[in-house]
């Protein structure tokens, strides 16, 4: 039940998937909101601290989900045309890649001057030496582009899930809600 089977996802994947989904949507909203806060807003500093703290936690979750994916079987694709199955697979990897790049770019903004990132005042993530000149600004642009790209991908991902659930009436969405048994 915890692990994936060839029929369905297990609780571990399901929990990580939805926790990531909710966190990413929240982070997108928080990101858009915080960059427009005025200097005297009480949340001007706190919003960024929160965004950074959650970002690091999300990085851990992202890595855990990726490791779990490699360490586990994956459900076989539901019946459908070969191109759809290929597109689904490609989409999953593009999502992993985009989320990973987005997280790394965020890290590179805040650590560009050698400062570490404090995670909820619990621990510090140290900085790496800056890679390029004006890193915070260059990577900042990339971070924004990636964030919007990810939301675009999420919409496609969501639309595909809806299509499978309501049009194809298959288990694609259902098996990501709770683990399905051997019987259908």
């Amino acid at each position: 039940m915890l692990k994936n089977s060839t029929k369905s996802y297990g609780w571990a994947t399901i929990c990580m998937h939805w926790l990531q989904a909710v966190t990413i949507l929240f982070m997108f909203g928080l990101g858009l909101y915080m960059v427009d806060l005025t200097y005297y807003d009480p949340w001007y500093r706190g919003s960024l601290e929160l965004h950074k703290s959650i970002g690091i936690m999300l990085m851990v979750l992202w890595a855990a989900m990726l490791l779990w994916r490699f360490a586990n079987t994956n459900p076989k694709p539901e019946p459908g045309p070969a191109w759809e199955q290929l597109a689904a697979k490609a989409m999953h990897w593009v999502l992993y890649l985009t989320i990973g790049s987005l997280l790394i770019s965020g890290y590179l903004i805040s650590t560009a001057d050698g400062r570490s990132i404090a995670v909820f005042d619990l621990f510090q993530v140290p900085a790496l030496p800056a890679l390029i000149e004006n890193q915070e600004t260059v990577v900042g642009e990339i971070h924004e582009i990636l964030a919007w790209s990810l939301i675009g991908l999420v919409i496609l991902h969501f639309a595909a899930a809806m299509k499978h659930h309501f049009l194809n009436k298959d288990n694609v969405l259902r098996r990501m809600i709770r683990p399905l048994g051997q019987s259908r």
Partner: protein
Amino acid sequence: MKKLFKAAALSAAMIAATSANAADYVIDTKGAHAFVQFKIQHLGYSWLLGRFNTFEGEFSYDAKKPEDAKINVVIQTASVDSNHAERDKHLRGKDFLNVSKYPTATFTSTRFIPADDNNGTLEGEFTLHGVTKKISFPVKKIGEGSDPWGGYRAGFEGSTTLKMADYGMTYNLGPASADVQIDLYIEGIRK
């Protein structure tokens, strides 16, 4: 013999050309003996300091004819450095310098009015954030003379305060932080 004479004439011409431009200096940004610093109040409780790391310029100065002095400086706005990446990112963005649209800030002097041997007022046009304004500010000569490596150097300092809103930067940092002080410390190597 003819060749030697030609060479001698050429050297003499070169020396003459050099001495004609004896009052021309290039600002020593290569050796980082020049600084464009800025200073702004933080909340009215303290100062925030920063600088522009990349700029270049030239000036002319002859102690015998100080009224002929002139200077030209080009600052790369993206090189703003307040020792904090997240703040620098904000400063480069649309709320402040908007460096992708306005990559340089320039100062070109139009007149120098000497007051005494070491002081005077510099007038010129300053372009920042796409806005050009006439400004004037006091300048002080620190010193000039030979350096230990065979060159000749002269150094000056100057300071001016400008209202950010005058240059189209209206992001509200609070009532105490509407003005920014710019301090120039330049050392030139005579060409």
